[in-house]
């Protein structure tokens, strides 16, 4: 009976006024029946139950048709006066209770929760559960929507849930305002539904993310979990019970920083491919080598210092708190107010090449960055931005790299969500050198422009590409990779797409494959390109006639009648020739 719990709650609250009303009616009717009346000719009579009920029904609801069936005696009128006051009070009590119930917070919450549960129950399209709908959640929501999935969003803050409806998206997310640490909420959000594609735990609270990852592991182990973690301890715990993907924005940024120093081209390609839909290719940036100053030694500062030390650079740490004793890295340490000119000077800012403004406060970070550049205008500045609201200030400042944790998490999630092959491709990008990455960027940019391309995987299976798979199994002629990029409306033209990776079985995938590569059944190809190219290519994969035209140039007629006509024409042609 959980289905209409709010309704029951509602009914229970209405018990008292309803019983009062029934009692008032019963007493009124009984009185009218008992009091002697007179009929039309003046003889003594009594009112029947039916007439009493009829009279009371229109009188109590203040409709008032008058005295029926005959004019009343004064004794009846006296009783009717009493009954009118009683019944009006009874109705007023009922209506007042109804109105107060509609304003009752608990009840409206219950009704809302019930509505959400019903919506989730009706959700049969593939969807993701996003826990934590802050800045990261909103960014990912856009990406999920772009990829054509639905989204169930859970957040503690009801205001954020309201904002979901304001986002202009193809399909609105189902918003639940509740604490994700309660596992029941995850079940309400559809964790056990077969259409659930994955759970993203993205709250700012590590413990809440851990709770979500754990709950999913226990309640529905088949569903992949992607969890955000900001401390190594949480990461270790999550790894221990097999969370599918753990995103630590600070560690990821540290890794990016190292990559940007070693191979700026790879970093550029990586951030372009994992970019949010609609972002453009950045100019290449390369953090200089030399003395670095890191302001703020928190979780973020630690990761940056680690990656800088990996690149063997002299580092000076500036923090308001004194140096921690345990596990202290061998680096210079200046303790003092971080925004102070004197502190920065004593940290040796005059001969430094770069500064990291990495405290937990946006205003402090900007103050550090501005002060630092007034002392040393050539400084390379890495600015940490915590809140999206600070975006206009950060834009105005023009830092070399702006680190936004929510965006990094979003990029990581999107890379994982988009297509599993992308993760393998990115691994290849990380392992190759700068020149290789530059060549790839040049190729993609020349073909597709600077906007982040659409990425998709083509699997040559009977399910996803039946036309191609049949050909590969039955025809002698091979299919070359370049033939998948032919335009179905004009086979001499090429679609705006570039194959990035070919994966066959468990073997090492082939990155930037040769166009002459010969495809086989069950190969998976990762493409980058435009949405139009993707849609056009889908025809070749699915439609046998389109495939035949694209592969052989023959306009094959569809349908039996056209096939018969074509055969006839062929025969006649033969006859003429012989």
């Amino acid at each position, binding site marked *: 009976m959980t289905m209409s719990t709010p309704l029951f709650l509602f*009914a229970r609250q209405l*018990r008292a006024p309803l019983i009062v009303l*029934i009692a008032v*009616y019963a007493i009124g009717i009984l009185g009218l029946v008992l009091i002697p009346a007179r009929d039309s000719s003046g003889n003594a009579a009594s009112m*029947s139950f039916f007439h009493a009920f009829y009279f009371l029904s229109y009188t109590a609801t203040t409709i008032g048709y008058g005295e029926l069936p005959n004019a009343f005696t004064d004794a009846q009128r006296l009783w009717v006066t009493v009954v009118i006051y009683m019944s009006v009070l009874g109705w007023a009590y009922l209506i007042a209770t109804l109105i107060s119930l509609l304003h009752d917070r608990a009840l409206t919450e219950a009704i809302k929760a019930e509505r959400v549960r019903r919506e989730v129950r009706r959700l049969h399209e593939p969807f993701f559960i996003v826990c934590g709908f802050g800045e990261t959640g909103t960014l990912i929501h856009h990406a999920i929507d772009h990829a054509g999935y639905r989204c169930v969003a859970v957040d503690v803050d009801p205001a954020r849930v309201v904002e979901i409806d304001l986002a202009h998206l193809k399909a609105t997310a189902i918003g639940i305002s509740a604490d994700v640490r309660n596992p029941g909420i995850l079940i309400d959000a559809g964790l056990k539904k077969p259409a659930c594609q994955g759970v993203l735990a993205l709250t700012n609270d590590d413990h809440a993310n851990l709770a979500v990852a754990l709950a999913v592991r226990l309640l529905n182990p088949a569903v992949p979990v992607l969890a955000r973690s900001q401390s190594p301890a949480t990461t270790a715990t999550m790894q221990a019970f097999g969370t599918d993907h753990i995103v630590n924005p600070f560690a990821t940024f540290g890794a990016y920083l190292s990559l940007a120093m070693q191979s700026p081209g790879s970093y550029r390609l990586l951030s372009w491919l994992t970019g949010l839909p609609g972002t453009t290719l950045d100019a290449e940036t390369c953090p200089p080598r030399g003395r670095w100053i890191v302001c703020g030694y928190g979780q973020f500062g630690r990761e940056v210092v680690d990656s800088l030390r990996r690149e063997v650079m002299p580092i000076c740490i500036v923090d308001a708190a004194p140096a921690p004793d345990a596990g202290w890295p061998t680096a210079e340490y200046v303790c003092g107010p971080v925004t102070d000119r004197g502190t920065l000077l004593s940290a040796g800012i005059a001969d430094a090449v770069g500064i990291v403004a990495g405290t937990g406060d946006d205003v402090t970070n900007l103050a550090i960055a501005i002060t630092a550049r007034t002392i040393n205008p050539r400084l390379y500045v890495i600015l940490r931005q915590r809140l999206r609201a600070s975006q206009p200030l950060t834009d105005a400042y023009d830092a070399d790299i702006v680190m936004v944790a929510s965006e990094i998490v979003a990029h990581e999630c999107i890379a994982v969500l988009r297509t599993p092959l992308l993760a393998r491709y990115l691994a290849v990008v990380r392992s190759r050198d700068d020149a290789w990455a530059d060549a790839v960027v040049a190729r993609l940019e020349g073909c597709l422009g600077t906007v982040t391309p659409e990425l998709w995987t083509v699997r040559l299976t009977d399910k996803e590409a039946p036309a191609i798979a049949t050909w590969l199994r039955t025809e002698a002629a091979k299919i070359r990779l370049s033939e998948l990029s032919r335009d179905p409306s004009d086979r001499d033209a090429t679609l705006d797409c570039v194959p990035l990776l070919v994966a066959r079985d468990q073997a090492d995938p082939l990155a930037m494959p040769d166009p002459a590569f010969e495809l086989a059944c069950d190969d998976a190809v990762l493409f980058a390109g435009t949405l139009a190219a993707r849609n056009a290519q889908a025809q070749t994969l699915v439609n046998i006639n389109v495939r035949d035209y694209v592969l052989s140039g023959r306009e094959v007629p569809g349908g039996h009648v056209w096939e018969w006509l074509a055969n006839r024409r062929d025969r006649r042609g033969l006859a003429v020739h012989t």
Partner: protein
Amino acid sequence: MNLEKVVFGFFILLAATLNFGFVYGDPGDPEHHHVYEFFAAIVVNFIATVLKVGESTQIGALHLATSLVAILQLCAAAIVWFWVAYESQDALGVRHTVAIVSLAAGALLANLISVVMLIIETTLQRR
């Protein structure tokens, strides 16, 4: 002792007893079945129904169902009675009384089931 339980049990029992009192007697004799008792049975059945609404347990749902059945039967009896009294030409005879009383007897059965359920529910509670 819980006042809510007392009130609940009181109305369920009263609905059954009033219903029984109305049905009791010669089913064909209008003199044995008084309209006031019928009216009281209807009112008390309505109150009992309202009291049962809002129980979200399985047995609560069954309670509500029995009450709804009883009300339906009694309302049917009331309409038959109204028809005989106002719209038909013949006076209240054996034929009509039997119809009214048998409908009310159906309501009595529903009310008795409700009472039995109340007793079972009480014995199942270990306090």
